[in-house]
C-alpha cells in the first residue's frame, strides 16, 4: 500500500521545466530517499507534495485519495533552510505552528510538553529563539515538524547543522517514528545516511526520474560483478594466476593479510574465480562488493550528463 503517489508530474517555470513527468510511489512505513544533484528539482517536488505550489500537470494521491488541503494535517515538513520567528518565544511559537497545522491548543500544549521532557529542554519554553544556539534551534525545528504526529514526514537535509551526538539522536528519532508507523521522505546529499536509513530511493536529475525502487533491487541492478578476496600468501602469484576474464581493481595490505578487489568479465562466475585462486593462496574471506549509493549516484548522474 502506497501512502503517497505522484503520477507524471510536470512543473514549468518561466524559463525552465523543473519537473518533467516525474512519478513516484512511496510505500507506507518506508524511509524513502529522494536524491539528486543540486538543481535537479527535489525542492520543487517537495513543495508540490507539501501543496506549497501546484503542479502544471499530473496527479497526486495521499492514501489513495486525491491530494487536498485536508491532508496538510497529515504531513510534516522540515525544510532544508531552517527558519523560525527569532523574536518569538519557543513554546508560543511551536504551539502557533502546530495550530496552523490544525491541532487544538490544548492538544498542542500537551504534546509539546512531552517532547520537551523527552529532549530535557523544559526550561526553554519561555526563551526567545534568538537566545538559543543553532543546535538547540534545530531541535525546536524538529519538534515543530513532528508535533502533530503526521503520517508522512519530509526531511530535507535533516542532519545539517547537528553535531554527531545530536545527529545520532535525530537518526534514532527518525527510526522510532518509522516504528510508530510514519512514512519518511528523506532528501539529502549525505550518501552515508541514505545507505544507513533508506529502504527505497529515487534519483531525479534535470527534472526526470532516473532511478526508482527498493534499495535491494537497485543495488542488484547496479552490481558490477566485483568480489573482494581476503587472503594470506604471495600477491604476485595471485596476480599471475588471473587471466583475461578477470580484472584486478586494487590491492590493500594489513600486516600479513591482503585484500584484492576483482571484477569478473565475460560471464565468468564467482565459483570459477574461487577455484582459480584456491590452489594459489590461502583464502580467508570471499564476498561480493555491492556498489555504494554514492557510486550509483555518481555513475547515473554522469551517464545522464552525456545524454
Amino acid at each position: 500500500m502506497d501512502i503517497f503517489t505522484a503520477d507524471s508530474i510536470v512543473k514549468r517555470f518561466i524559463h525552465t521545466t523543473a519537473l518533467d513527468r516525474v512519478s513516484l510511489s512511496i510505500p507506507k512505513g518506508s524511509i524513502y530517499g529522494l536524491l539528486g544533484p543540486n538543481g535537479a528539482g527535489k525542492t520543487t517536488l517537495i513543495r508540490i507534495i507539501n501543496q506549497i505550489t501546484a503542479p502544471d500537470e499530473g496527479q497526486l494521491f495521499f492514501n489513495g485519495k486525491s491530494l487536498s488541503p485536508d491532508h496538510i494535517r497529515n504531513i510534516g515538513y522540515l525544510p532544508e533552510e531552517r527558519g523560525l520567528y527569532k523574536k518569538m518565544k519557543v513554546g508560543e511559537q511551536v504551539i502557533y505552528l502546530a495550530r496552523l497545522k490544525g491541532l487544538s491548543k490544548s492538544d498542542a500544549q500537551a504534546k509539546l510538553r512531552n517532547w520537551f521532557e523527552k529532549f530535557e529542554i523544559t526550561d526553554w519554553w519561555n526563551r526567545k529563539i534568538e537566545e538559543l544556539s543553532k543546535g538547540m534551534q534545530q531541535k525546536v525545528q524538529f519538534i515543530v515538524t513532528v508535533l502533530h504526529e503526521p503520517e508522512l514526514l519530509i526531511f530535507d537535509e535533516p542532519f545539517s547543522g547537528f553535531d554527531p551526538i545530536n545527529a545520532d539522536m535525530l537518526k534514532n528519532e527518525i527510526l522510532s517514528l518509522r516504528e510508530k508507523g510514519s512514512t519518511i521522505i528523506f532528501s539529502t546529499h549525505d550518501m552515508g545516511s541514505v545507505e544507513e536509513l533508506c529502504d527505497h530511493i529515487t534519483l531525479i536529475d534535470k527534472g526526470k526520474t532516473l532511478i526508482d525502487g527498493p534499495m535491494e533491487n537497485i543495488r542488484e541492478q547496479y552490481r558490477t560483478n566485483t568480489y573482494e578476496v581476503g587472503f594470506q600468501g604471495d600477491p604476485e602469484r595471485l596476480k599471475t594466476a588471473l587471466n583475461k576474464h578477470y580484472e584486478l581493481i586494487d590491492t590493500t595490505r594489513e600486516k600479513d593479510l591482503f585484500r584484492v578487489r576483482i571484477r569478473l568479465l565475460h560471464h565468468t562466475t564467482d565459483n570459477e574465480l574461487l577455484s582459480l585462486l584456491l590452489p594459489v593462496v590461502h583464502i580467508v574471506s570471499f564476498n561480493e562488493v555491492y556498489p555504494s549509493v554514492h557510486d550509483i549516484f555518481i555513475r547515473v548522474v554522469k551517464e545522464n550528463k552525456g545524454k
Partner: protein
Amino acid sequence: MNKIGLIIRREYVTRVRKRSFIIMSIIGPLLFASFMVIPAWMAMSEDQEVKKIAIVDSSNLFMNVIQNTEYLKFDYLYNTKLNDIKDHFREAGYYGVLYISHIVASEPNSVVFYSDTQPSQATTMYISKAIEEYIRDQKLKAYEIEDLDNILKSVKTRINIRTIKITDSGQEKESHTGIVMVVGYAGGFLIYMFIFIFGAQLMRGVIEEKVNRIVEIVISSVRPFQLMMGKIIGIAMVGLTQFMIWVVSTFILVSIASSLLFPELNMTPTETVITQDIMSAGTVENQPQAPSEEMTELMGAFAALRNIDFGVMLGSFLFYFLFGYLLYAAMFASIGAAVDSETDTQQFMLPVTIPLILSLFVLINAINNPDSSIAFWFSLIPFTSPVVMMARIPFGVPYWQVFLSMGLLVATFLAMTWVAAKIYRTGILMYGKKASYREMLKWIRHG
C-alpha cells in the same frame, strides 16, 4: 479558530507587546496634548504677568496714547534720553523700553522695543496697533473734517468674523475656518502617517519571514494568500488600536490639562456664544477689557470644535484609514515578497511614496480651498483620496462625491490585492534572484 484568524492574532499580539508600540502609545498622546495645550497656555500665562514698559518718545506725540491694559502698564518718561534708561531698565523695574523716534510718521521702522526677553506677539501687536491708529487719526485730522472725533469713534467697530454654516437640514452651525482647517489637516496627515508607518511594518514583516525562511513552514500549512491577508489585517488592527489609544488618552490629557490651566473655558456653549457676541459687535469703548483677543479666539475655536460632526469625522476617518492602508498594504506586501533584504526595497518604493507624498501636497491645497478642482479630483483618485478627502470632509462634501470616492477606493483595493497576491505567492519562494519590474510583471501574468 480558523487559520487566517490564528495569523491575525499572532501578528496583533506580537506587535502590540513590542516595546516600541508601548512607547508610541505613551509618547503620542503626550505630544498631541502638548501641541494643543502648550501654545494656548503660553499665550495666556504670558499675559497674566503685569509688565511695565517705559516709553521714550523723542517725537513727543504719544503722551497717553498707548492705554494701559490689565497686564501691560506704560510709563511715559519725560525728558529721558534713550541711553539713560536702555542699559538699566531692569533695575528700574521695567519689562522693556519702547523707543519712538521723531520721524515715526514717515518712517515705519523707527519704533524700537528694547527688552532682554522676546516680547509676545500680542504685546508688540497691541503697541503697533495703538501707534498706527493714533498716527492715522492725526493724519485724518489734518483734513479738518467736521466732528471728526465722533465719526472716528463710531467707525471703530471691531469685527470678528463668525461663519455660520447652514446645513442641509436647515440648521445653523457655527464654524470656525481655522479650527476646521486644523481638523482636516490632522485627519489627512494622520492617515498619511499611519499608511507609511504600518505599511513599512508590514513590509518588514514579510521580509523577515522570507529571510528567516519560516515562510516555507507557514505556507506548508496555509495558503500564501491567507498568510498575506492575515498579516495585512493583523497590522491594520494594530494601527487601529494605536489610533484609539491616541485619541482616548489625548482627549483625557487635554481635558485634565484644560480644566487645570484654563478654568474659564469650561463655560456652557451658550455662555460662550453670548460673551462672544458682546465682544464681537460692541464698539471699542464698550468692550470689557478682561478677555484678551487670544481668549476670544480660543473660546471661538472650542465652540467650533463642538460643532464639527465628530461622528461623521470619525466614521470617515476609520473608513479612509482602513481602506487607504489596505490599498497600500497590498503594495508594501508585494515589495517585501519581491526582495531579499530591506536595502533592496528602495528601487520599488517610488510607486508607493510618490502618490503618498503628492497627496500630502494636495492636502495643504485642499484645506485652504476644499472645493477646488485639484482637491476634487485628488479626493476621488484612490491613491490620494484617503488623505485628501479627510481634509475636505470637515468643510462638508456632497454625499455623491464621498460615496464615489469610497467606492473607487474599495474597488482599487480589491484589484491591487489580487495583483499583490500573485507577486507575493511567487516572490516569497524566490531567493537570490534580484527581482525587477519586468520579472514581477511575469509573476503576475503567470501566477
